[in-house]
């Protein structure tokens, strides 16, 4: 009989559920506020309205990254070095994505 608790992490699972749930609400609310501002003043949109929307979009992109970071820390804390290394590798790949995007932006600009 295999050890059934092998891949269950009750604490980590509820922590991730909490972070992702509230993070999603925060990002959605930010986008909502920005959009509402831009709709209210449709003829002369305030400079900051779309900036607020952009912050909300960035929050959504960062939320899963933060989730991987939490997994990295919890695995490290559990001395599960193999899995903290895997989480670190995913974080490195996510960072690589940002670098790829920045280089593409420079190529377009230059």
């Amino acid at each position, binding site marked *: 009989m*295999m050890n*059934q608790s092998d891949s269950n992490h009750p604490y980590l699972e509820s922590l991730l*559920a909490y972070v992702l749930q509230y993070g999603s609400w925060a990002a959605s609310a930010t986008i909502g506020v920005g*959009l509402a501002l831009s709709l209210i003043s449709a003829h002369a949109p305030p400079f900051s309205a779309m900036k607020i*929307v952009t912050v909300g979009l*960035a929050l*959504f992109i960062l939320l*899963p990254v933060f989730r991987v970071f939490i997994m990295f820390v919890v695995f490290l804390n559990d001395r599960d070095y193999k899995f903290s290394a895997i989480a670190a590798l995913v974080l490195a790949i996510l960072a690589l994505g940002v670098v790829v*995007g920045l280089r593409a932006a420079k190529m377009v600009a230059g």
Partner: protein
Amino acid sequence: MNSGFTLWLFFVSMGASALGGMLGMASGIFIVPILILFGHVEIHTAIGASLISVIACSCGGVAPYLKGRLTNIRLAIVLEVATTLGAITGVLLSGIIPVVYLFFLFAAILFLSAQQMLAKRGDPVIATGVVPSGWGTTLHLHSSYPDVKQKQEIPYHVQRVPMGMMLMYGAGLISALLGIGIGVLKIPAMDTALRLPIKVSSATSNFMIGVTAAASAGAYFMRGTIIPSVAGPVALGSVLGAVIGAHILMRTSNAKLRLFFVVVLVLLGIQMLLQALGIHWRVG
């Protein structure tokens, strides 16, 4: 940018996401073609906006699965190495691949989704007496999930992880190229290769798609192809639509809804093909 278009984007995304949510489908597969065909949004802008809504629906919807212990988070992080690498490959390719090929690829994915929607999915038959081995054992990926109906824990083994990872790399690549979730490729990868029970497969892939889309969305954000005036209303509409969809999930006949989706997917696929061939359809 006018407020009428903002509202149109918001309500169309909400509708697509509510309909998709009723069948547990990611809405990206509908949103991208609708934005392109009816909103005349440029394809890369549509893909960027859709990716944010994919992240939003993944992050906003995972909590019940996590609390229900259906998500295998260890397996997820292992497969995310492959999906995020695939996503970055997709980003690199998206700068090179001509738009016409993106339309063809999208049409193919739409037809494939329609075909999969008609096919029945079943839980893999668990071979008894087989000693589990390989990556699934070394990485302690085997697990169990609670079955509510039978009130018991159902153990399962994760098989053929390397093959699953290869398929997931492809799924990540397509996701980044087309701005959609990985529903279509999840079925061959998670059901056939890894042989996961359906509930675990759905929960785990829904958990992974957020990180996968974040890898490509991060790159597109830096590149400047995520336009806030489009991505904002699409993301917000999708989140609200997913909430609505989850609430009306139980009230409709599943078979009729499925058939409706098959028709919609095929019609959108045909439209994307026509677009690829340069035949522009005047709608309305």
